[in-house]
């Protein structure tokens, strides 16, 4: 029972990270039909920022610095991607552009950090464990879960309750209409792209103590984020949250029970959802883009 609890907690921690990562992917797709294939590479930038700044035994300050640096790097990269993809209107071109940028970024990271597997330690004050129902569990992961909850609430308030959020939601539903109403959708789109990429990079830092950093991690993370977006419904914030929680659990339970088939289970979950709900579990309210 207690081991199951650990796995559920692991799943929640993973779900929190996946939500942070998948959110940008989902909104960018929902708002401008751009499939950002560099999203995994942006995540990896964050992970390597943590490798560079968070040394063994580093304190909270270094970690916070890494988060901020990753957010800035992610936002810049996101802005660049937004600018590049806006240069062409064809969706496949845009996907190929991001694919190219992703390859370049990942290769530059390999050039800089080598092909070794880097592990990143959690900041010292939260590096220990606490006892949860008789099992020792890392404090850091509990904090990640907390971060996920805070992020979910913040995004909910921002997207569902603020004026900016209503522009975002309306753009997902009908871009042409929003533009016709005189809203400068271009700036909103670039902003969302940059913010989404910043979140993915921050996710890379936060996931550092759990997943480490190594070449090829970008693909794995991109895959998980894609599956989260597909399961949740393209362009839907609530969908991304639900998808992240589901995939986090599938991933954690799979790793605990059937380690060899964990990735197969992820695909099976996606196939199952698509079989029952082709547009995802919680599609954006108007499924124009689905």
């Amino acid at each position: 029972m207690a081991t199951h609890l650990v796995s559920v907690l692991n799943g929640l921690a993973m779900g929190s990270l996946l939500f942070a990562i998948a959110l940008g992917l989902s909104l960018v797709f929902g708002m401008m039909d751009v499939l950002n294939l560099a999203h995994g590479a942006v995540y990896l930038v964050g992970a390597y920022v943590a490798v560079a700044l968070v040394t063994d035994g580093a304190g909270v300050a270094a970690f916070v610095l890494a988060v901020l640096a990753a957010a800035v790097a992610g936002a810049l990269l996101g802005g660049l991607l937004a600018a590049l993809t806006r240069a062409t209107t064809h969706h496949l071109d845009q996907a190929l552009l991001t694919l190219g940028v992703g390859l370049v970024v990942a290769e530059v990271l390999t050039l800089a950090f080598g092909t070794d597997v880097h592990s990143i330690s959690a900041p010292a004050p939260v590096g220990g464990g606490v006892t949860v129902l008789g099992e020792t569990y890392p404090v850091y992961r509990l904090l990640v879960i907390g971060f996920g909850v805070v992020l979910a609430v913040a995004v909910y308030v921002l997207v569902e309750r603020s004026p900016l959020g209503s522009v975002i939601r309306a753009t997902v539903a009908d871009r042409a209409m929003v533009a016709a109403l005189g809203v400068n959708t271009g700036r909103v789109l670039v902003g969302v792209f940059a913010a989404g990429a910043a979140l993915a990079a921050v996710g890379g830092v936060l996931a550092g103590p759990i997943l480490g950093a190594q070449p090829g991690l970008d693909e794995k993370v991109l895959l998980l984020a894609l599956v989260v977006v597909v399961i949740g419904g393209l362009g839907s914030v609530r969908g991304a949250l639900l998808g992240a929680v589901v995939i986090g659990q599938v991933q954690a339970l799979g790793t605990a029970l059937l380690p060899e088939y964990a990735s197969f289970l992820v695909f099976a979950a996606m196939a199952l959802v698509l079989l029952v709900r082709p547009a995802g579990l919680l599609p954006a309210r108007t499924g124009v883009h689905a």
Partner: protein
Amino acid sequence: MRAETEKEKEQEKEQEQEKDTVTVHGGTPAPPDPAPVVEAPDSAATAGADRPHRRRAAVVVAVVALLTAAPLVLSPYPVSAMTRMLAFAVLVIGVDLLTGVTGLPSLGQAAYFGVGAYTAVLVGVHITPDAMVQALAGLVMGLVAAAVTGWVAVRARGIVFLMLTLAIGESVHQVADTWSAVGGSNGLAGMPPVTLFGGPALLAAGFVYWWVLVVAALVFAAVALVVRSPYGRTLRGIRDNEARMRALGYRPALARYGVFCLAGAVAGVGGALWAQQARFFSPGDMGFEVAALALLSVVIGGAGSLWGPCLGAALVLFVRDNLSASIGGHGPLVLGAVFVAVVFLMPRGLAGLTGGRLRELAGARRRKENSS
């Protein structure tokens, strides 16, 4: 070989015909008369209709002869590299069938390539070294894998299709990476050299090359036939206007599923050929990068045409395996830059992936060649 030559000739003929109208493509109302600038080379072509075809046939014969003669003059290393290019070209032909002909851009074909390769290795290790049996097994398993997973993807179109195929491809890749039955991340080694017709093992690189060349040519001819068949017409119809197809009484989802399975079978053959050359296969050979490079080959080569993507496949693999050695093993850096460059330098070409603009571009280039 002869049949293939004729196929290519046919294709050229079709392209000649397309060339007649490409200039007025692009949504604007067609002018009653094409611009005289365009008409000049066209009328020249009709006047001496035989000449360009004969010249093309000569080119095809020369290319085939060169490809066949290559092992006689080259050392084993470049011959092995060319063998890999041919196997990769088979994968690319399958991607082109989806992307160029049917308008479904795919990043998942590397999965079926891997399935075919693992099948060939397993058959080679446990059952028989017969190359034909292995290739056939690769074909069947690629088909089966595509049939089992494809229904998820073919319900979508465009960029969502791209996303789903990527998810499928990566999932299969990671299953291979963790599944101990296929060696996990270490891959599968120990495949004995292949044999043909119960003869001795094909140890020389040249013999393997010839075998792969023959199969690749057969696949090329088969796909060329599909493209020109009524089914190929159906696929082009789906690419151009799916709603119209439904209004004509078609069930496009069925045709899309069919071509997805077909492309999976083609990729399976490609994988089997790849494994027969390397006698080893690991998850790294079927990852995201392979899928991306296959799509890049199609884009560079010209979606919808068959020989173009084959050329693109050779080019892409050359950059990755040979050029990258001379720049410190960082081929992906170059290829990533190529992706970006292709989009910006040939924007009209890329747009042709779902329309016919790439062919338009190719036509424009041909016209330039003609006039110079």
